[in-house]
Protein backbone atom coordinates (compact mmCIF):
# COMPACT_ATOMS: atom_id res chain seq x y z
CA UNK A 1 0.00 0.00 0.00
CA UNK A 2 1.46 3.29 -1.08
CA UNK A 3 0.47 5.11 2.06
CA UNK A 4 2.98 3.14 4.08
CA UNK A 5 5.66 4.73 1.98
CA UNK A 6 4.50 8.23 2.82
CA UNK A 7 7.04 10.58 4.22
CA UNK A 8 6.96 10.54 7.99
CA UNK A 9 8.87 13.68 8.61
CA UNK A 10 5.81 15.77 9.34
CA UNK A 11 4.45 15.60 12.85
CA UNK A 12 1.26 16.98 14.30
CA UNK A 13 -0.57 16.41 17.56
CA UNK A 14 -3.94 14.76 17.04
CA UNK A 15 -5.55 17.32 19.39
CA UNK A 16 -4.94 19.70 16.47
CA UNK A 17 -7.09 17.42 14.36
CA UNK A 18 -9.92 17.90 16.84
CA UNK A 19 -9.49 21.66 16.88
CA UNK A 20 -9.61 21.84 13.08
CA UNK A 21 -12.28 19.26 12.37
CA UNK A 22 -14.74 20.46 14.99
CA UNK A 23 -14.86 23.93 13.42
CA UNK A 24 -15.64 22.42 10.03
CA UNK A 25 -18.33 20.17 11.53
CA UNK A 26 -19.81 22.98 13.61
CA UNK A 27 -20.19 25.19 10.56
CA UNK A 28 -21.93 22.42 8.65
CA UNK A 29 -24.25 21.48 11.49
CA UNK A 30 -25.52 23.99 14.06
CA UNK A 31 -26.36 21.12 16.42
CA UNK A 32 -22.68 20.38 16.97
CA UNK A 33 -21.72 21.83 20.35
CA UNK A 34 -18.43 22.02 22.22
CA UNK A 35 -18.59 21.80 26.00
CA UNK A 36 -15.29 23.06 27.38
CA UNK A 37 -14.13 22.39 30.91
CA UNK A 38 -11.90 25.48 31.06
CA UNK A 39 -8.91 24.03 29.20
CA UNK A 40 -10.12 24.95 25.72
CA UNK A 41 -6.83 26.62 24.83
CA UNK A 42 -4.96 23.42 25.46
CA UNK A 43 -7.60 21.23 23.84
CA UNK A 44 -7.59 23.44 20.73
CA UNK A 45 -11.16 24.68 20.78
CA UNK A 46 -10.09 28.32 20.40
CA UNK A 47 -11.15 28.63 16.78
CA UNK A 48 -14.53 27.04 17.51
CA UNK A 49 -15.13 29.54 20.32
CA UNK A 50 -14.25 32.40 18.00
CA UNK A 51 -16.29 31.28 15.04
CA UNK A 52 -19.23 29.51 16.68
CA UNK A 53 -19.84 31.10 20.09
CA UNK A 54 -23.50 30.18 20.02
CA UNK A 55 -22.60 26.49 19.87
CA UNK A 56 -20.07 26.71 22.64
CA UNK A 57 -20.40 26.28 26.40
CA UNK A 58 -17.68 26.60 29.01
CA UNK A 59 -18.66 25.23 32.41
CA UNK A 60 -15.38 26.09 34.08
CA UNK A 61 -13.46 23.59 36.14
CA UNK A 62 -16.43 21.32 36.74
CA UNK A 63 -16.17 18.08 34.77
CA UNK A 64 -19.15 16.36 36.36
CA UNK A 65 -21.48 19.18 35.49
CA UNK A 66 -20.03 19.43 32.00
CA UNK A 67 -20.91 15.80 31.38
CA UNK A 68 -24.45 16.17 32.70
CA UNK A 69 -25.03 19.39 30.81
CA UNK A 70 -23.88 17.68 27.61
CA UNK A 71 -26.40 14.90 28.22
CA UNK A 72 -29.13 17.50 28.66
CA UNK A 73 -28.13 19.12 25.38
CA UNK A 74 -28.19 15.72 23.69
CA UNK A 75 -31.80 15.13 24.76
CA UNK A 76 -32.75 18.15 22.65
CA UNK A 77 -30.97 16.87 19.54
CA UNK A 78 -27.63 18.57 19.98
CA UNK A 79 -24.40 16.66 19.39
CA UNK A 80 -22.15 17.82 22.22
CA UNK A 81 -18.41 17.17 22.19
CA UNK A 82 -17.09 17.45 25.73
CA UNK A 83 -13.50 18.58 25.49
CA UNK A 84 -10.96 18.00 28.24
CA UNK A 85 -7.90 15.92 29.13
CA UNK A 86 -8.13 12.14 29.00
CA UNK A 87 -7.57 11.60 32.74
CA UNK A 88 -10.44 13.93 33.65
CA UNK A 89 -12.67 12.97 30.74
CA UNK A 90 -12.46 9.30 31.63
CA UNK A 91 -12.32 9.42 35.41
CA UNK A 92 -13.56 12.71 36.89
CA UNK A 93 -16.77 12.42 34.88
CA UNK A 94 -16.88 8.64 34.52
CA UNK A 95 -20.04 8.11 36.52
CA UNK A 96 -21.86 11.03 34.94
CA UNK A 97 -21.04 9.66 31.49
CA UNK A 98 -22.15 6.22 32.60
CA UNK A 99 -25.45 7.38 34.10
CA UNK A 100 -26.41 10.20 31.78
CA UNK A 101 -24.85 9.29 28.43
CA UNK A 102 -24.22 5.55 28.23
CA UNK A 103 -27.20 4.27 30.24
CA UNK A 104 -29.76 6.35 28.31
CA UNK A 105 -27.66 5.91 25.13
CA UNK A 106 -27.48 9.62 24.36
CA UNK A 107 -25.48 11.17 21.57
CA UNK A 108 -22.67 12.54 23.73
CA UNK A 109 -19.05 12.55 22.55
CA UNK A 110 -16.16 12.76 25.00
CA UNK A 111 -13.20 14.15 23.07
CA UNK A 112 -9.97 14.13 25.02
CA UNK A 113 -6.48 15.39 24.48
CA UNK A 114 -3.47 14.24 26.52
CA UNK A 115 -4.07 10.55 25.90
CA UNK A 116 -1.54 8.01 27.16
CA UNK A 117 2.00 9.13 27.87
CA UNK A 118 1.87 12.04 25.44
CA UNK A 119 1.74 14.80 28.05
CA UNK A 120 5.24 13.76 29.01
CA UNK A 121 6.36 16.70 31.10
CA UNK A 122 3.09 16.99 33.07
CA UNK A 123 3.88 13.80 34.92
CA UNK A 124 1.87 10.83 36.11
CA UNK A 125 -1.10 12.82 37.35
CA UNK A 126 -1.87 13.93 33.80
CA UNK A 127 -0.92 10.84 31.81
CA UNK A 128 -4.01 8.73 31.14
CA UNK A 129 -2.99 5.10 31.32
CA UNK A 130 -6.42 3.60 31.96
CA UNK A 131 -8.94 5.83 30.18
CA UNK A 132 -9.79 3.58 27.24
CA UNK A 133 -10.17 0.66 29.60
CA UNK A 134 -12.61 2.58 31.77
CA UNK A 135 -14.82 3.38 28.82
CA UNK A 136 -14.42 -0.01 27.19
CA UNK A 137 -16.39 -1.55 30.04
CA UNK A 138 -19.35 0.81 29.73
CA UNK A 139 -22.24 -0.57 27.67
CA UNK A 140 -23.18 1.49 24.57
CA UNK A 141 -19.81 3.25 24.52
CA UNK A 142 -17.55 3.36 21.47
CA UNK A 143 -13.80 3.88 22.09
CA UNK A 144 -11.54 5.38 19.41
CA UNK A 145 -7.99 6.62 19.01
CA UNK A 146 -6.72 7.70 15.62
CA UNK A 147 -3.09 7.15 14.65
CA UNK A 148 -2.35 10.55 13.18
CA UNK A 149 -3.77 13.93 12.22
CA UNK A 150 -5.67 12.94 9.09
CA UNK A 151 -7.10 9.68 10.37
CA UNK A 152 -8.19 11.40 13.57
CA UNK A 153 -10.04 14.07 11.57
CA UNK A 154 -11.83 11.42 9.56
CA UNK A 155 -12.79 9.49 12.68
CA UNK A 156 -14.09 12.65 14.40
CA UNK A 157 -16.19 13.42 11.34
CA UNK A 158 -17.64 9.95 11.39
CA UNK A 159 -18.24 10.09 15.13
CA UNK A 160 -20.26 13.28 14.65
CA UNK A 161 -22.38 11.53 12.04
CA UNK A 162 -22.88 8.32 13.99
CA UNK A 163 -25.37 8.18 16.85
CA UNK A 164 -24.30 7.13 20.31
CA UNK A 165 -21.92 7.89 23.16
CA UNK A 166 -18.28 7.82 22.10
CA UNK A 167 -14.88 8.38 23.61
CA UNK A 168 -12.25 9.87 21.31
CA UNK A 169 -8.69 10.11 22.49
CA UNK A 170 -6.03 12.44 21.12
CA UNK A 171 -2.33 13.04 21.67
CA UNK A 172 -0.99 16.13 23.35
CA UNK A 173 2.38 15.81 21.67
CA UNK A 174 3.04 15.81 17.97
CA UNK A 175 3.04 12.39 16.34
CA UNK A 176 4.17 11.49 12.81
CA UNK A 177 1.70 11.81 9.95
CA UNK A 178 1.08 8.43 8.39
CA UNK A 179 -1.96 8.80 6.19
CA UNK A 180 -2.94 10.84 3.22
CA UNK A 181 -5.82 13.25 3.79
CA UNK A 182 -7.98 11.31 1.35
CA UNK A 183 -7.64 8.01 3.19
CA UNK A 184 -11.00 6.70 4.43
CA UNK A 185 -11.69 5.20 7.85
CA UNK A 186 -14.63 3.40 9.29
CA UNK A 187 -15.40 3.29 13.02
CA UNK A 188 -15.22 -0.32 14.17
CA UNK A 189 -13.25 -1.48 11.16
CA UNK A 190 -9.49 -2.08 11.34
CA UNK A 191 -7.29 -0.39 8.77
CA UNK A 192 -4.88 -2.83 7.17
CA UNK A 193 -1.53 -1.19 6.50
CA UNK A 194 0.36 -4.29 5.43
CA UNK A 195 -0.57 -7.80 4.48
CA UNK A 196 1.77 -10.61 5.41
CA UNK A 197 1.86 -14.15 6.71
CA UNK A 198 4.60 -14.62 9.32
CA UNK A 199 3.44 -12.37 12.11
CA UNK A 200 0.60 -9.91 12.74
CA UNK A 201 1.01 -6.58 14.51
CA UNK A 202 -2.07 -4.78 15.77
CA UNK A 203 -1.49 -1.23 17.01
CA UNK A 204 -3.49 1.91 17.68
CA UNK A 205 -3.03 5.61 18.29
CA UNK A 206 0.47 7.01 18.45
CA UNK A 207 2.01 3.51 18.36
CA UNK A 208 0.88 2.79 14.80
CA UNK A 209 3.87 4.73 13.51
CA UNK A 210 6.23 2.65 15.67
CA UNK A 211 4.58 -0.54 14.47
CA UNK A 212 4.98 0.58 10.90
CA UNK A 213 8.72 1.16 11.36
CA UNK A 214 9.07 -2.19 13.11
CA UNK A 215 7.24 -3.90 10.26
CA UNK A 216 9.67 -2.37 7.77
CA UNK A 217 12.66 -3.67 9.76
CA UNK A 218 11.15 -7.14 9.98
CA UNK A 219 10.50 -7.17 6.26
CA UNK A 220 14.10 -6.22 5.63
CA UNK A 221 15.02 -9.34 7.54
CA UNK A 222 12.72 -11.41 5.38
CA UNK A 223 9.81 -11.63 7.84
CA UNK A 224 6.39 -10.99 6.31
CA UNK A 225 4.15 -8.78 8.50
CA UNK A 226 0.45 -8.14 8.55
CA UNK A 227 -0.16 -4.75 10.18
CA UNK A 228 -3.48 -3.40 11.42
CA UNK A 229 -4.36 0.06 12.74
CA UNK A 230 -7.08 -0.82 15.26
CA UNK A 231 -8.28 2.74 15.82
CA UNK A 232 -11.53 1.51 17.38
CA UNK A 233 -11.03 -0.80 20.34
CA UNK A 234 -14.77 -0.95 20.97
CA UNK A 235 -16.60 -2.25 19.09
CA UNK A 236 -13.56 -4.29 18.19
CA UNK A 237 -13.22 -5.50 14.60
CA UNK A 238 -13.43 -9.13 15.61
CA UNK A 239 -13.22 -10.42 12.06
CA UNK A 240 -9.95 -8.62 11.52
CA UNK A 241 -8.51 -10.28 14.61
CA UNK A 242 -9.84 -13.69 13.57
CA UNK A 243 -8.17 -13.24 10.19
CA UNK A 244 -4.87 -12.68 12.01
CA UNK A 245 -5.33 -16.10 13.59
CA UNK A 246 -4.51 -17.67 10.24
CA UNK A 247 -1.02 -16.45 11.09
CA UNK A 248 -1.56 -17.24 14.75
CA UNK A 249 1.15 -14.93 16.10
CA UNK A 250 0.06 -11.46 17.16
CA UNK A 251 1.89 -8.53 18.73
CA UNK A 252 -0.34 -5.75 20.09
CA UNK A 253 1.01 -2.25 20.66
CA UNK A 254 -0.67 0.58 22.50
CA UNK A 255 0.05 3.74 24.49
CA UNK A 256 -2.26 2.52 27.28
CA UNK A 257 -2.10 0.10 30.15
CA UNK A 258 -1.69 -3.44 28.82
CA UNK A 259 -4.69 -4.20 31.04
CA UNK A 260 -8.09 -3.61 29.47
CA UNK A 261 -6.96 -1.81 26.35
CA UNK A 262 -6.22 -3.00 22.82
CA UNK A 263 -4.05 -5.92 23.93
CA UNK A 264 -6.73 -7.22 26.25
CA UNK A 265 -9.45 -6.82 23.66
CA UNK A 266 -7.45 -8.75 21.08
CA UNK A 267 -6.48 -11.42 23.63
CA UNK A 268 -10.13 -11.99 24.51
CA UNK A 269 -10.90 -12.86 20.91
CA UNK A 270 -7.81 -15.05 20.59
CA UNK A 271 -8.67 -16.93 23.80
CA UNK A 272 -12.25 -17.49 22.68
CA UNK A 273 -11.11 -18.76 19.31
CA UNK A 274 -8.73 -21.10 21.11
CA UNK A 275 -5.78 -20.68 18.84
CA UNK A 276 -2.90 -18.28 18.40
CA UNK A 277 -0.57 -16.44 20.68
CA UNK A 278 -0.42 -12.79 21.71
CA UNK A 279 2.35 -10.58 23.02
CA UNK A 280 1.14 -7.31 24.50
CA UNK A 281 3.27 -4.18 24.32
CA UNK A 282 2.00 -1.18 26.24
CA UNK A 283 2.18 0.62 29.56
CA UNK A 284 3.27 -1.93 32.14
CA UNK A 285 0.44 -1.39 34.64
CA UNK A 286 2.20 1.54 36.21
CA UNK A 287 1.82 5.29 36.37
CA UNK A 288 3.90 7.68 34.34
CA UNK A 289 6.22 10.44 35.51
CA UNK A 290 7.68 13.66 34.18
CA UNK A 291 10.00 12.85 31.31
CA UNK A 292 10.15 13.29 27.57
CA UNK A 293 7.38 11.29 25.91
CA UNK A 294 9.89 9.13 24.04
CA UNK A 295 11.69 8.29 27.29
CA UNK A 296 8.43 7.19 28.91
CA UNK A 297 7.62 5.01 25.92
CA UNK A 298 11.07 3.47 26.20
CA UNK A 299 10.63 2.80 29.93
CA UNK A 300 7.54 0.77 29.07
CA UNK A 301 9.08 -1.03 26.12
CA UNK A 302 6.85 0.73 23.62
CA UNK A 303 9.61 0.99 21.04
CA UNK A 304 10.35 -0.11 17.50
CA UNK A 305 13.10 -2.39 18.83
CA UNK A 306 10.81 -4.13 21.30
CA UNK A 307 8.13 -4.66 18.67
CA UNK A 308 10.75 -6.27 16.41
CA UNK A 309 12.09 -8.43 19.25
CA UNK A 310 8.62 -9.49 20.37
CA UNK A 311 7.65 -10.47 16.84
CA UNK A 312 10.78 -12.57 16.51
CA UNK A 313 10.18 -14.23 19.86
CA UNK A 314 6.76 -15.29 18.66
CA UNK A 315 8.29 -16.76 15.53
CA UNK A 316 10.69 -18.92 17.52
Amino acid at each position, binding site marked *: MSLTEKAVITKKATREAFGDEIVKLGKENKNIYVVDIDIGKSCKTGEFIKQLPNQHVN*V*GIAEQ*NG*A*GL*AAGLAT*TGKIPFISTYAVFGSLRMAEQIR*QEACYPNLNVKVACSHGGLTPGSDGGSHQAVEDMGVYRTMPNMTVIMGADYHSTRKLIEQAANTYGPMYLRFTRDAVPMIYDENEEFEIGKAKQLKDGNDVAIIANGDTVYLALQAAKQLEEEGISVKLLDMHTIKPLDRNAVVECLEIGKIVTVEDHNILNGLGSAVSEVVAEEGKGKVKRIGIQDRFGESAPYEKLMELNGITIENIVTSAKELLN
Partner: protein
Amino acid sequence: MKEVSVAELQEKAIELRKTAITMIFEAQSGHPGGSLSAADIITALYFKEMNIDPQNPKWEDRDRFVLSKGHVAPIQYAALALRGFVSYENVYKLRQYGSPFQGHPDMKKCPGIDISTGSLGQGLSCGVGMALAGKRDEKDYRVFAMVGDGECQEGQIWEAVQTAVKYKLDNLIVFVDNNRLQIDGFCEEIMPLQDIEKKFEVFGFETKRIDGHSMEEIVQTLDEVTKAKNGKPKCIIADTIKGKGVSYMEDICSWHGVAPNEQEYEQALEELAGGLR
Protein backbone atom coordinates in the same frame (compact mmCIF):
# COMPACT_ATOMS: atom_id res chain seq x y z
CA MET B 1 -51.01 25.43 31.40
CA LYS B 2 -54.36 23.95 32.30
CA GLU B 3 -57.33 25.63 33.95
CA VAL B 4 -57.82 23.61 37.07
CA SER B 5 -58.85 24.60 40.58
CA VAL B 6 -56.75 24.23 43.70
CA ALA B 7 -59.39 21.89 45.14
CA GLU B 8 -59.17 19.64 42.09
CA LEU B 9 -55.39 19.60 42.35
CA GLN B 10 -55.57 18.74 46.04
CA GLU B 11 -57.79 15.83 45.20
CA LYS B 12 -55.42 14.76 42.44
CA ALA B 13 -52.48 14.89 44.82
CA ILE B 14 -54.26 12.39 47.07
CA GLU B 15 -54.85 10.13 44.09
CA LEU B 16 -51.17 10.34 43.18
CA ARG B 17 -50.19 9.44 46.74
CA LYS B 18 -52.51 6.44 46.75
CA THR B 19 -51.18 5.33 43.38
CA ALA B 20 -47.55 5.62 44.48
CA ILE B 21 -48.21 3.73 47.72
CA THR B 22 -50.09 1.02 45.83
CA MET B 23 -47.16 0.71 43.46
CA ILE B 24 -44.66 0.34 46.29
CA PHE B 25 -46.92 -2.06 48.18
CA GLU B 26 -47.40 -4.27 45.10
CA ALA B 27 -43.66 -4.27 44.40
CA GLN B 28 -42.81 -4.62 48.10
CA SER B 29 -39.97 -2.31 47.22
CA GLY B 30 -39.46 1.40 46.59
CA HIS B 31 -39.21 4.75 48.34
CA PRO B 32 -42.45 5.96 49.92
CA GLY B 33 -41.17 8.75 52.19
CA GLY B 34 -39.78 11.08 49.52
CA SER B 35 -42.53 10.15 47.07
CA LEU B 36 -45.07 11.54 49.52
CA SER B 37 -43.11 14.70 50.31
CA ALA B 38 -42.85 15.49 46.58
CA ALA B 39 -46.45 14.62 45.73
CA ASP B 40 -48.07 18.07 45.80
CA ILE B 41 -45.41 19.74 43.66
CA ILE B 42 -45.46 16.90 41.13
CA THR B 43 -49.24 17.19 40.95
CA ALA B 44 -49.16 20.94 40.32
CA LEU B 45 -46.57 20.47 37.58
CA TYR B 46 -48.19 17.55 35.75
CA PHE B 47 -51.82 18.54 36.14
CA LYS B 48 -51.61 22.29 35.76
CA GLU B 49 -48.32 23.97 35.00
CA MET B 50 -46.48 21.94 32.39
CA ASN B 51 -47.20 22.09 28.67
CA ILE B 52 -46.94 18.43 27.82
CA ASP B 53 -48.74 16.03 25.51
CA PRO B 54 -49.24 12.42 26.60
CA GLN B 55 -49.89 11.50 22.96
CA ASN B 56 -46.58 13.01 21.93
CA PRO B 57 -44.18 12.62 24.86
CA LYS B 58 -41.15 13.70 22.82
CA TRP B 59 -42.81 16.84 21.45
CA GLU B 60 -39.83 19.15 21.04
CA ASP B 61 -41.51 22.27 22.44
CA ARG B 62 -42.74 20.55 25.60
CA ASP B 63 -41.81 21.65 29.08
CA ARG B 64 -39.26 19.29 30.62
CA PHE B 65 -39.20 17.73 34.05
CA VAL B 66 -36.05 16.40 35.68
CA LEU B 67 -36.46 14.27 38.76
CA SER B 68 -32.92 14.64 40.05
CA LYS B 69 -33.89 12.74 43.20
CA GLY B 70 -34.70 9.76 41.00
CA HIS B 71 -35.47 7.33 43.81
CA VAL B 72 -38.89 8.91 44.30
CA ALA B 73 -39.84 7.69 40.83
CA PRO B 74 -43.13 6.16 42.06
CA ILE B 75 -44.70 9.60 42.47
CA GLN B 76 -43.62 10.63 38.96
CA TYR B 77 -44.85 7.30 37.58
CA ALA B 78 -48.19 7.91 39.31
CA ALA B 79 -48.43 11.26 37.51
CA LEU B 80 -47.50 9.69 34.17
CA ALA B 81 -50.03 6.89 34.60
CA LEU B 82 -52.83 9.19 35.69
CA ARG B 83 -51.99 11.70 32.97
CA GLY B 84 -52.14 8.98 30.30
CA PHE B 85 -48.49 8.70 29.26
CA VAL B 86 -48.53 5.00 30.11
CA SER B 87 -51.31 2.55 30.90
CA TYR B 88 -52.49 2.38 34.50
CA GLU B 89 -51.76 -1.37 34.56
CA ASN B 90 -48.10 -0.53 34.99
CA VAL B 91 -48.86 0.61 38.53
CA TYR B 92 -48.79 -3.09 39.40
CA LYS B 93 -45.45 -3.62 37.69
CA LEU B 94 -43.11 -1.26 39.54
CA ARG B 95 -39.57 -2.66 39.58
CA GLN B 96 -40.67 -5.77 37.67
CA TYR B 97 -38.89 -7.30 34.71
CA GLY B 98 -39.91 -5.63 31.45
CA SER B 99 -41.75 -2.78 33.17
CA PRO B 100 -41.49 0.86 32.03
CA PHE B 101 -41.48 1.62 35.76
CA GLN B 102 -37.88 0.76 36.56
CA GLY B 103 -36.50 1.21 40.07
CA HIS B 104 -35.27 4.64 38.98
CA PRO B 105 -36.52 6.72 36.00
CA ASP B 106 -35.37 5.32 32.65
CA MET B 107 -36.05 7.48 29.61
CA LYS B 108 -35.50 4.53 27.28
CA LYS B 109 -38.22 2.46 28.88
CA CYS B 110 -40.84 4.95 30.05
CA PRO B 111 -42.60 7.56 27.88
CA GLY B 112 -42.65 10.96 29.55
CA ILE B 113 -39.30 10.62 31.30
CA ASP B 114 -37.11 13.40 29.91
CA ILE B 115 -33.85 12.12 31.40
CA SER B 116 -32.81 8.96 33.21
CA THR B 117 -31.78 9.67 36.79
CA GLY B 118 -31.01 7.77 39.95
CA SER B 119 -27.49 8.74 40.90
CA LEU B 120 -27.96 11.76 43.15
CA GLY B 121 -26.54 15.13 42.25
CA GLN B 122 -26.52 14.56 38.50
CA GLY B 123 -29.97 15.38 37.19
CA LEU B 124 -29.81 19.13 37.67
CA SER B 125 -26.85 19.40 35.28
CA CYS B 126 -28.96 17.70 32.61
CA GLY B 127 -31.73 20.18 33.29
CA VAL B 128 -29.26 23.01 32.81
CA GLY B 129 -28.29 21.52 29.43
CA MET B 130 -31.94 21.33 28.37
CA ALA B 131 -32.63 24.89 29.48
CA LEU B 132 -29.53 26.17 27.73
CA ALA B 133 -30.55 24.44 24.49
CA GLY B 134 -33.98 26.08 24.81
CA LYS B 135 -32.40 29.51 25.16
CA ARG B 136 -30.01 29.00 22.25
CA ASP B 137 -32.82 27.74 20.02
CA GLU B 138 -35.13 30.56 21.15
CA LYS B 139 -37.76 28.16 22.31
CA ASP B 140 -40.34 28.96 24.96
CA TYR B 141 -40.27 25.70 26.87
CA ARG B 142 -39.40 25.67 30.56
CA VAL B 143 -37.38 23.12 32.48
CA PHE B 144 -38.60 22.10 35.93
CA ALA B 145 -36.25 20.17 38.14
CA MET B 146 -36.65 18.65 41.57
CA VAL B 147 -33.72 18.01 43.87
CA GLY B 148 -33.72 16.72 47.41
CA ASP B 149 -32.25 18.72 50.27
CA GLY B 150 -30.00 15.79 51.14
CA GLU B 151 -29.02 15.65 47.49
CA CYS B 152 -27.68 19.20 47.78
CA GLN B 153 -24.77 17.71 49.73
CA GLU B 154 -23.45 16.65 46.32
CA GLY B 155 -20.94 19.16 44.95
CA GLN B 156 -22.21 18.75 41.41
CA ILE B 157 -25.48 20.47 42.35
CA TRP B 158 -23.55 23.67 42.95
CA GLU B 159 -21.58 23.26 39.73
CA ALA B 160 -24.91 23.11 37.91
CA VAL B 161 -26.27 26.07 39.86
CA GLN B 162 -23.37 28.34 38.93
CA THR B 163 -23.72 27.36 35.27
CA ALA B 164 -27.45 28.14 35.25
CA VAL B 165 -26.65 31.60 36.60
CA LYS B 166 -23.81 32.20 34.13
CA TYR B 167 -26.06 31.44 31.18
CA LYS B 168 -29.03 33.39 32.62
CA LEU B 169 -31.39 30.44 32.47
CA ASP B 170 -34.62 32.05 33.65
CA ASN B 171 -36.40 29.13 31.95
CA LEU B 172 -35.10 26.81 34.69
CA ILE B 173 -37.17 26.34 37.83
CA VAL B 174 -35.64 24.20 40.55
CA PHE B 175 -37.66 22.81 43.44
CA VAL B 176 -35.84 21.72 46.55
CA ASP B 177 -37.98 19.08 48.26
CA ASN B 178 -36.84 20.21 51.68
CA ASN B 179 -38.02 17.28 53.78
CA ARG B 180 -34.98 17.46 56.10
CA LEU B 181 -34.35 13.72 56.06
CA GLN B 182 -31.97 11.40 54.29
CA ILE B 183 -31.32 7.64 54.59
CA ASP B 184 -29.12 7.79 57.66
CA GLY B 185 -31.07 10.42 59.59
CA PHE B 186 -31.78 14.13 59.69
CA CYS B 187 -29.73 16.10 57.16
CA GLU B 188 -28.88 18.48 59.97
CA GLU B 189 -27.03 15.64 61.73
CA ILE B 190 -25.57 13.85 58.71
CA MET B 191 -24.26 16.96 56.95
CA PRO B 192 -25.82 20.32 57.77
CA LEU B 193 -26.86 22.30 54.71
CA GLN B 194 -26.91 25.65 56.50
CA ASP B 195 -29.31 28.17 54.99
CA ILE B 196 -30.14 26.49 51.71
CA GLU B 197 -32.26 29.36 50.43
CA LYS B 198 -29.46 31.84 51.04
CA LYS B 199 -27.02 29.51 49.30
CA PHE B 200 -29.08 29.51 46.12
CA GLU B 201 -29.53 33.25 46.45
CA VAL B 202 -25.83 34.10 46.73
CA PHE B 203 -25.11 31.85 43.76
CA GLY B 204 -27.45 34.15 41.81
CA PHE B 205 -30.81 32.39 41.77
CA GLU B 206 -34.10 34.10 42.44
CA THR B 207 -35.48 32.21 45.41
CA LYS B 208 -38.85 31.63 47.06
CA ARG B 209 -39.69 29.67 50.16
CA ILE B 210 -43.04 27.95 50.44
CA ASP B 211 -45.00 25.29 52.27
CA GLY B 212 -44.53 22.40 49.85
CA HIS B 213 -47.85 20.88 50.86
CA SER B 214 -49.94 24.00 50.32
CA MET B 215 -51.40 23.69 46.84
CA GLU B 216 -52.36 27.39 46.88
CA GLU B 217 -48.78 28.41 47.56
CA ILE B 218 -47.32 26.03 44.99
CA VAL B 219 -49.66 27.21 42.24
CA GLN B 220 -49.28 30.88 43.09
CA THR B 221 -45.49 30.68 43.31
CA LEU B 222 -45.22 28.82 40.01
CA ASP B 223 -47.34 31.53 38.46
CA GLU B 224 -45.01 34.22 39.77
CA VAL B 225 -41.67 32.64 38.95
CA THR B 226 -42.59 31.50 35.46
CA LYS B 227 -43.66 35.04 34.58
CA ALA B 228 -40.38 36.60 35.69
CA LYS B 229 -38.20 36.76 32.56
CA ASN B 230 -35.39 38.47 34.42
CA GLY B 231 -32.40 36.42 33.37
CA LYS B 232 -32.32 34.63 36.70
CA PRO B 233 -32.89 30.92 37.23
CA LYS B 234 -35.46 30.24 39.93
CA CYS B 235 -35.31 28.12 43.05
CA ILE B 236 -38.32 27.27 45.16
CA ILE B 237 -37.43 25.88 48.56
CA ALA B 238 -40.44 23.76 49.41
CA ASP B 239 -40.62 22.88 53.08
CA THR B 240 -42.11 19.42 53.15
CA ILE B 241 -42.63 16.45 55.41
CA LYS B 242 -41.24 13.10 54.40
CA GLY B 243 -44.11 10.63 54.29
CA LYS B 244 -46.73 13.42 54.20
CA GLY B 245 -50.29 12.05 54.29
CA VAL B 246 -49.59 8.73 56.01
CA SER B 247 -49.33 9.36 59.74
CA TYR B 248 -46.98 6.53 60.66
CA MET B 249 -44.54 7.50 57.90
CA GLU B 250 -44.40 11.22 58.56
CA ASP B 251 -40.95 12.44 59.57
CA ILE B 252 -39.81 8.87 60.17
CA CYS B 253 -36.44 8.24 58.62
CA SER B 254 -36.87 4.48 58.30
CA TRP B 255 -39.69 4.98 55.76
CA HIS B 256 -37.15 6.26 53.23
CA GLY B 257 -36.91 3.06 51.29
CA VAL B 258 -39.19 0.33 52.63
CA ALA B 259 -42.59 -0.93 51.48
CA PRO B 260 -45.65 -1.09 53.75
CA ASN B 261 -47.07 -4.49 54.68
CA GLU B 262 -50.72 -5.28 53.97
CA GLN B 263 -52.06 -3.84 57.20
CA GLU B 264 -49.96 -0.71 56.86
CA TYR B 265 -51.06 -0.38 53.24
CA GLU B 266 -54.74 -0.53 54.17
CA GLN B 267 -54.20 2.07 56.86
CA ALA B 268 -52.36 4.33 54.42
CA LEU B 269 -55.21 4.19 51.91
CA GLU B 270 -57.75 4.85 54.65
CA GLU B 271 -55.88 7.86 55.97
CA LEU B 272 -55.31 9.28 52.50
CA ALA B 273 -59.02 8.93 51.74
CA GLY B 274 -59.55 11.55 54.42
CA GLY B 275 -57.22 13.99 52.66
CA LEU B 276 -54.16 15.76 54.02
CA ARG B 277 -54.31 16.79 57.62
